């Protein structure tokens, strides 16, 4: 028996998720993932390629300063990656080392504690890092291409990236073990979930405050590039992320020998860290786990005023609707991780609004500025759709799964599953619509939309998109429900969550395609007088097609979700 055998149940569970899916869906999903990865890769490559040349600084200084700037951006990316994996690994370690449901059986077995620890460490590393690695990989390869790396660099680089994952995970493991010696585990997990969201929010603001778009504007380029180059934190030079950055730069510039020398300290550090962590775990892991078993979970009954205020409007509603709504609101308010996530969502919304407010519309020649402004208003609805979809992924998509194993209570009651699903749909649709409309109002005022048709169309689009997105979140959330998951974050980050986002994107595309003609007519009519009724007929056809397709997009996920719930057999 070795540590790898101990993690095999987790791998089998993962494999089962895919074995139940049709090849078509898997192919569709893989294609979508590859497309997103390519877009990240290509978009960033074009940006880096431009920044690397810095043409506005001339042929001599441009490439020199641009090269330094690309290097600095890579350093920032590694630092971000390192901290994201570090925080994520502490949370994953607290779960995997102390709260995993297999642990009581493993700890009661005669297996050496070191072997159990290594198996948990392996699970924790995969859980904390896979998603970060997958999303960062295309971005890092964009740097390789921008720096004109040869093909061996692409093959060697994944091994370098391994250190960006292992080292923060080792640090996370040490931190979790040390914390467990002094503090109750469940509370620590919540504290770190909160901290990690704060760090992420901070990163969003930090990256936004860099104002990367100014790098593309000749009049700002010099100032902003000097600012980035002057960013110098002495400690960062001695951090593993900085060593990794230097080694990767050498690798991408095709100095493989030098890169291997530069990565050597990380290899030594990783090996030493693994050995030390093993010794540390052999000495303290069993005791700290036993302590965690004695701790009682806290009683979160705070914020009762908020819960009461939120349920108050429903006090006279139909009893079934009222109790389902009360339960949803109560669960929502009592989830300690919820407020940090609302905070992060608010940051995303703020950054979106800020991005729009700094768009250089006034720099555009006046003849076209109106058209460009209107095009942006037209595209604003879909952008709001993506924001609403990401909020729906966190708050609406997990709502069926969060019924958890207690779902038998609903299944055995006289309440029809349709009533459950429709109640949830209505309950979540209201705040989603309010959010979408507020975003639309704010952005319309930023754009100073004066054309009434455009104004109404923007609200109309947001309402349709929100309706479909909420139905998708409920329906796809029911089809891919995981009633054993303990955290909404885990559900949102699942395979089903990805499908939901992909389908939301497809609907937005569907809406854009069907509205292209009416938009084109509206612009056309500004310059030329429309003749005949064929245009009106085509606009009407577009509208009918849009409403019909929207009804289908609302109905099918809801119906599929309902079928799944009706046939679901709880444990």
């Amino acid at each position, binding site marked *: 028996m070795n540590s790898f055998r101990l993690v095999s149940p987790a791998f089998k569970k993962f494999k089962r998720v895919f074995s139940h899916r049709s090849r078509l869906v898997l192919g569709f999903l893989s294609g979508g993932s590859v497309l997103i990865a390519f877009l990240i890769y290509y978009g960033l490559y074009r940006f880096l390629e431009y920044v690397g040349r810095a043409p506005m600084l001339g042929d001599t200084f441009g490439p020199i300063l641009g090269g330094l700037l690309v290097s600095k951006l890579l350093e920032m990316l590694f630092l971000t990656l390192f901290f994201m994996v570090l925080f994520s690994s502490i949370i994953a370690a607290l779960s995997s080392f102390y709260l995993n449901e297999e642990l009581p059986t493993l700890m009661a077995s005669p297996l050496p504690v070191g072997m159990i620890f290594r198996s948990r460490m392996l699970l924790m590393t995969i859980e904390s890092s896979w998603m970060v690695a997958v999303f960062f990989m295309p971005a890092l390869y964009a740097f390789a291409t921008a720096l004109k790396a040869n093909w061996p660099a692409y093959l060697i680089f994944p091994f370098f990236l391994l250190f960006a994952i292992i080292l923060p995970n080792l640090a996370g493991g040490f931190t979790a073990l040390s914390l467990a010696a002094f503090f109750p585990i469940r509370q620590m997990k919540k504290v770190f979930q909160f901290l990690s969201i704060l760090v992420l929010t901070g990163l969003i603001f930090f990256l936004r405050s860099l104002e990367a778009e100014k790098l593309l504007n000749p009049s700002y380029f010099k100032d902003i590039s000097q600012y980035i180059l002057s960013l110098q934190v002495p400690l960062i030079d001695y951090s593993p992320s900085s060593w990794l950055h230097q080694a990767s730069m050498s690798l991408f510039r095709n100095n493989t020998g030098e890169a291997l020398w530069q990565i050597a300290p990380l290899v030594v550090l990783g090996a030493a860290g693994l050995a030390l962590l093993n010794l540390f775990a052999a000495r303290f892991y069993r005791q700290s786990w036993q302590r965690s078993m004695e701790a*009682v*979970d806290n*009683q*979160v*009954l705070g914020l009762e005023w908020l819960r009461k205020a939120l349920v108050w409007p429903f006090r006279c509603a139909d*009893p*079934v609707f*009222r*109790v*389902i709504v*009360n*339960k949803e609101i*109560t*669960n929502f308010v*009592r*989830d300690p991780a919820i407020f940090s996530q609302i905070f992060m969502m608010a940051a995303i919304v703020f950054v979106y609004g800020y991005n729009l407010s700094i768009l250089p519309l006034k720099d555009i020649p006046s003849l076209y500025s109106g058209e460009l402004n209107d095009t942006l208003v037209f595209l604003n609805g879909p952008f709001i759709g993506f924001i609403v979809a990401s909020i729906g992924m966190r708050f609406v998509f997990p709502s069926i799964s969060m019924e*958890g*194993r*207690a779902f*038998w*209570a*609903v*299944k*055995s*009651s*006289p*309440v*029809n599953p349709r009533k459950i699903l429709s109640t949830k749909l209505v309950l979540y649709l209201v705040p989603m619509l309010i959010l979408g409309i507020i975003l639309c109002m704010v952005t319309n005022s930023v754009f100073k939309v004066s054309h009434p048709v455009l104004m109404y169309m923007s609200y109309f689009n947001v309402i349709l998109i929100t309706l479909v997105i909420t139905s998708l979140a409920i329906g796809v959330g029911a089809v891919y429900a995981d009633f054993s998951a303990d955290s909404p974050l885990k559900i949102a980050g699942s395979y089903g969550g990805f499908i939901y986002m992909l389908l939301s994107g497809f609907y937005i595309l569907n809406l854009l395609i069907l509205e292209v003609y009416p938009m084109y007519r509206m612009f056309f009519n500004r310059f030329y007088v429309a003749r005949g009724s064929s245009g009106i007929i085509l606009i009407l056809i577009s509208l009918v097609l849009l409403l019909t397709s929207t009804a289908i997009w609302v109905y099918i996920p809801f119906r599929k979700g309902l079928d799944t719930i009706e*046939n679901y*057999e*709880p*444990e």
Partner: protein
Amino acid sequence: MNQNEPVIRFCEIKKQYGTFTALKSVSLEIFRGELFGFLGPNGAGKTTLIRILTGIIQPSGGQIFIGPHDLFAQPDKAKAMIGYVPDRPYLYEKLTPLEYFEFMGGLYNVTSDRIISKGEEMLRMFDLWDRRNELIESFSHGMKQKVAMSAAILHDPEIFVVDEPTVGLDPKSVKLAKNFFKRLIAEGKTVFLTTHTLSVAQDLCNRIAIIRQGDIVALGNMAELQRRASLPGNNLEEVFLKITEEESALQPQII
């Protein structure tokens, strides 16, 4: 409803999971005012039948009548007559017991006054009144079982379906639960329970069915089961083992 009318009728209930047959063709009638025990070895099909009875899972074939209602044609009316306590009391952990009662009561259209008065009565009976404002997530298995049992009675069901009622309960609570079932029967309700604790079944049940490999192999009161096992005067444990072993011996052996 007449005392001699069946309040639950299983008509040729079958359940197939792929190639595995969980229930072959179960037909059974349970009468009003009966405390009916459903026994069987592990994996015999007890929980499957109970889950079909409570509408949690669908059978592969057959019909169930709850009073005059067909469970699959009129599930809302049929389910409203049942109070169910599962073997594993998974509850909504972020609610307090009183909030859980409010939720369950709402699903069954129970008035707030009844939820409050019945909820308090049940929590006091099970010594949980002092913990009424704590989240269920901090409760032990036995305490959750008591909360589930209390919630199942809120809507005053005609039929009380209990899967392994004594698992996780301390001796005092087992006695309380047994008295509670007797009280329900005295009030004219019907109790359908499964248990592995044969002494509980022997003490409480008017009639007992023994299921094995998805088939009912014995049915009757204690005396009838003793006769069926040719063990007059013996306790239920010996009768149960005899009947289930006989049935095993009748199975074709693979050599």
